[in-house]
């Protein structure tokens, strides 16, 4: 891994070179009261005055709604148009936080578990992730408790750490090297070794290894009912989450043509596990809340060698009733 340095005034120059070399750059922009990822044409559009975007960057790899295939009936003939990998743009995901970059591990795992998802994998192959270390954090952040950190490089192709007059550039992958090669002359070697002094402090609040072990035996605990009592059962937490990957398959028929779609779904909804018979194995919000935490901290780690949470804190910020996941996990950690 190369560690380089770029001057502040050169970052926009490099950005323009990147913009010219790919189909789209997706970066955080301010829209009214929220900051969201969107396609950006000019470097100046990129938001800087925020801790975290409302939604995660997962949409770039796993959109809210996407077409699996479409069809057209002509008499007895049916023409099926499959997903075309060539339609996927070559993208650079610019200025994600390290906690968003880290979300590629659980996403990669679930979309390659047994079936290799062509749509996800094509997007993943064609997306270069440029993350930016966090110089600020807020009280919802807990990346350091789930194996991450304000300057963590995992999942990034390049990690930038802004200094007072430029940025430290950690080139993590070959994809990252290609971006640097676009403007090789703008980079110099970095030797100061003072990266940590530019990072936000995010205190660790629990030991995730102990927590995982403990949660493994907590299926019948009363804690789920206690914690979920105020939960209203909406899907905000799952939809803003960088790692939640549950989806629904929907038909959109229109006479002789139509399409099959994949769209986000959430285990917080009462209907998520409702059977045709009327039976619902997760009939209470307590059982749905248990599923949310167990999935992230027990089931995914058991099956996929990855955690289902990167500590971004988005679910807590988005929740209408302040279900603060960091607080809930800490209180589980403290149960004797």
């Amino acid at each position, binding site marked *: 891994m190369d560690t380089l340095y770029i001057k502040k005034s050169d970052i926009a120059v490099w950005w323009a070179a990147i913009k010219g070399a790919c189909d789209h750059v997706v970066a955080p922009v301010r*829209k*009214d*009261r*929220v900051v*969201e990822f969107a396609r950006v044409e000019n470097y100046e559009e990129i938001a800087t005055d925020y801790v975290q975007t*409302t*939604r995660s960057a997962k949409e770039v790899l796993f959109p*809210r*709604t996407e077409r699996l295939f479409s069809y057209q009936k002509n008499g007895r003939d049916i023409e099926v148009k499959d997903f075309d990998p060539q339609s996927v743009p070559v993208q650079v995901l610019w200025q994600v936080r390290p906690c968003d970059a880290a979300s590629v591990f659980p996403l990669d795992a679930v979309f390659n578990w047994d079936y290799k998802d062509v749509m996800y994998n094509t997007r993943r192959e064609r997306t270069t992730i440029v993350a930016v270390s966090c110089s600020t954090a807020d*009280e*919802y952040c807990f990346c350091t408790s789930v194996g991450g950190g304000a300057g963590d490089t995992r999942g990034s192709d390049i990690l930038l750490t802004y200094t007072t007059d430029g940025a430290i550039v950690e080139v993590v992958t070959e994809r990252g090297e290609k971006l640097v090669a676009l403007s090789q002359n703008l980079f110099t070697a970095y030797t100061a070794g003072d990266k940590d002094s530019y990072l936000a402090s995010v205190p660790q609040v629990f030991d995730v290894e102990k927590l995982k072990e403990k949660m493994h035996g907590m299926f019948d605990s009363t804690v789920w009912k206690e914690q979920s*009592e*105020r939960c*209203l*059962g*909406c*899907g*905000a937490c*799952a*939809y*803003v989450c960088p790692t939640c990957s549950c989806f*629904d398959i*929907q038909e*959109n028929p229109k006479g002789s043509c139509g399409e099959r*779609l994949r*769209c*986000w779904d*959430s285990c917080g*909804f009462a*209907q998520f596990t409702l059977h045709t018979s009327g039976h619902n194995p997760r009939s*209470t*919000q*307590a059982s749905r809340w248990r599923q949310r935490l167990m999935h992230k901290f027990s089931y995914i780690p058991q099956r996929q060698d990855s955690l289902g949470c990167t500590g971004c804190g988005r679910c*807590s*910020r*988005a*929740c*209408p*009733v*302040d279900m*603060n996941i960091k*607080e809930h996990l800490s209180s589980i950690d403290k149960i004797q």
Partner: protein
Amino acid sequence: MDKLKAKLKEWLEAGEITLAIGYKQGTREARPFFCRTAEDVEQMVFSNDFQPNLAVYLSKKEVVKDEKVAIVCTISALRSIAYLARENQIGQSQYKIIHLSPNDELMIFRSPWDIDAYIEEIPSTPSEEDRRVIEMLDAMTPSERWAWWAAQFSKCIKCYACRAACPMCYCTRCIVDNNRPQWIDPWASPLSNMEWQINRVMHLAGRCVGCGACGAACPEGIPVHLLNRKILDNIEENFGMPAGIAPREGAVLNTYKPEDKENFIK
């Protein structure tokens, strides 16, 4: 506040209630709080501006079933309870309805019907910021207004937090959850997001109390409550029913009187 806490403790200790639903300080703002002991009650906080509207929990069976409940109400929650009672959603349950008036007077309502006179003294008015946006929207042409809302709803992720936070959205099967037939496309898309909001707002027309919990709940910051507020304004203009007034004769769009000037229903 001390009077309110003392009353709740008294009820809990005497076994008159088993659960008090109120607020406590959350991460940044107040959050709903479920108290079962006198020690819990000490942590309670209250302001009439707090969100969400706690009346939303009264129609959640898994929360209130088998409990003797006291609910700490903001003025908005009182209005919601008056409507829920008219719609037979409170049932025979004897909730203790407790409130601190804006001048810090402790009020206990023995039944939802006792709320009417009190809430009618206090008009339901939007915030200055909301009024400003409504005026800006009113000044637009219909196509400009459509474009403004379309841009807002392009952010909608169909998390249904607006529905979940609304005390009047208590249907056991919401129109969007119905799939035979599928009235509204369940995936997020510009058209279906708009269809969902239009349905939500129309189902609440004449029933919404203007508490703003839907807009406060939206993680994307879409001011969905302004659609409801506009309908409250329209109802006042057309039917002379001010926003938030008690539905003494039923919700304004759900009732018919022989002297109504429209005769299409006869």
